[in-house]
């Protein structure tokens, strides 16, 4: 049945996926196995997004399916799901910018590729990034921004990380609608990712994951 669940989710058959998950939960299946199937399906969705056959509707719908299934399974679980993770990525849209579509895609792709992510959300003040680096201790920091005004916010954020003495503890990648290699140089980040897949590759390279 878990194979059917994987198919239903990855083929975007929401009603069927939820029905299958419900039957599995009620039939006493191992909650972890159900979640593993959902995770496997998310991996397939990620691969198809990367291959250019899936787009925003599929990422959003599969995310919604995963959440619904996780809600169903949760009461049956002794403790939270544990997954082996490659490494930690701290991510957020920089100060003054409240755009999140691009950032959310990157978060999705990092997640299905096995990273632990702390998403600080949008309009994240410089200090908040610095504090979160101290607490969360990520290897990678992702700065997102859509507006030209974000160029300076990214620069300020990188400088604040430097000033806090944390610059050599993290690799910093930037991305967003108008971001390029020129902006990478301007901000002092380590790299720029053209799209979510590039972000995943960078993060993998930096944490030494395959």
């Amino acid at each position: 049945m878990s194979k059917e669940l994987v198919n239903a989710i990855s083929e975007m058959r929401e009603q069927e996926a939820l029905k299958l998950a419900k039957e599995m939960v009620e039939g006493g299946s191992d909650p972890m196995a159900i979640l593993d199937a959902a995770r496997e399906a998310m991996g397939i969705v990620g691969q198809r997004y990367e291959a250019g056959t899936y787009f925003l509707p599929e990422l959003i719908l599969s995310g919604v399916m995963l959440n619904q299934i996780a809600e169903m399974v949760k009461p049956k679980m002794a403790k939270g799901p544990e997954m082996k993770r490659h490494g930690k990525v701290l991510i957020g849209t920089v100060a003054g910018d409240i755009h999140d579509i691009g950032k959310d895609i990157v978060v999705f792709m990092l997640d299905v590729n096995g990273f632990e992510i702390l998403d600080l959300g949008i309009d994240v003040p410089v200090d908040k990034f610095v504090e979160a680096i101290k607490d969360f201790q990520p290897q990678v920091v992702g700065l997102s921004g859509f507006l030209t005004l974000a160029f300076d916010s990214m620069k300020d954020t990188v400088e604040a990380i430097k000033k806090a003495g944390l610059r050599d503890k993290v690799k910093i990648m930037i991305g967003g609608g108008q971001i390029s290699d020129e902006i990478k140089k301007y901000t002092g980040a380590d790299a720029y990712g053209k799209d979510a897949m590039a972000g995943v590759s960078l993060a993998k390279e930096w944490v030494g994951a395959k």
Partner: protein
Amino acid sequence: MAKEWAELTSDEKQEALFQRWISPKDPGGNDLKFQNPEAEKSYKERINRIKDAIQLKKQPDRVPVLPLPSMFPALYAGLTVEEAMYDYEKCSAAFRKFVLDFEPDGHMGSAQFGPGRFFEKLDYKLYSWPGHGVSTMHSYQCNEGEYMKEDEYDALIQDPSGFFSNVYLPRVFGALEPLQMLPFLPGILEIYGVAFNFIPYGLPPVQSALKALMEAGQEALAWAGAVGGIEGELATLGYPQILAGFTKAPFDTIGDTLRGTRGIMLDIYRQPDKLLEAMEALTPLMIKMAVGAAQMNGKPIVFIPLHKGADGFLSDEQFRRFYWPTLREVMMGLIAEGCIPFPAAEGGYNSRLEVIKDLPKGKTLWMFDQTDMGTAKKILGDTACLLGNVPLDLLGVGTPQQVKEYVKKLIETASKRGGFILGNGAFFDNVKAENLKAMIEAGREYGAYS
């Protein structure tokens, strides 16, 4: 008047709108008095240059140059974005300075700064703006949400205007929340019981909402006076305002501000037929709002900012099924009334070029951002005028020399046989003034047709 409007062909209607644009009137309805004969000559030359580029009938004298800013004019003049939104005089002065310093072939007017006090009076929730969720130096930004719930498609489809007045407006304007109590207007019939319908207008919350509306209307008038004043003044100096009005792709109307990105993307799977039906219902309204504006303003170009159909948002199949048909219908409706649709395709549109070329020749103007201009010229060059695509990162952190080189190459790539307007790829806030100057100078230098 030789013929009634309805009897004109779409070509004749377009020509009539161009004629009204090129022979502007002052607010009193008399011929606009230019400040000097050169200004009048420049004004007409600039419009003809843009017209020739769009119509694809003949090459203009040179490539028109249109730098199209967002908040840049305010920042360039040393204002905060907040000042530009709240102080209409300062905003007008800043905009005048931008146009006079950069001498573009046209401008989009200063309406993008928006009246801050108006937004305040109505407690606009759809956007965050300086002092209301973003800093004084940052531009306003949309707060996406499900302002229309997933089960409200039928209400929208059956009565779009009623949905806007009684459901949507009360949700996006805090001060208009009581308007959800307003009566169903088509129920106002005959004499028996007709007065029952008016009871809501007597209720204190509705009355306070109506009061807020009147105050907001006054604020809008004051602001529009400033916006119109500077446009008129710039016209007398030889600089035409290029936009007649604005409309949207029905998919974006629903995806941007009604259902939000998350909502509309889920609807593609959960209720595709409702989504398609709602877009069909909105299509005539999207046409009507722009045609009305073009008639009132006496100009042809209608701005259509495109958002959620760009590369990466939807698959080719989804674009062809959900995004393009009603956008095309809107554009064809505009063209039939003599308008020139001006879609701004922010992001990339590389995967859409083959689809969007299904349009009549010489009737549209496409602004491209991260679309390959060589490919765009190849595929769309015989159909549409292209505008773009100097990248914002280059304008923001590049050097004037780099900008010049980019423009030179761009003109070589995209301007053959006309059909090209030089501009930025997306709307910009803080870029380097010297880079913008370099873009414009390079356009004049390399853009001459011999």
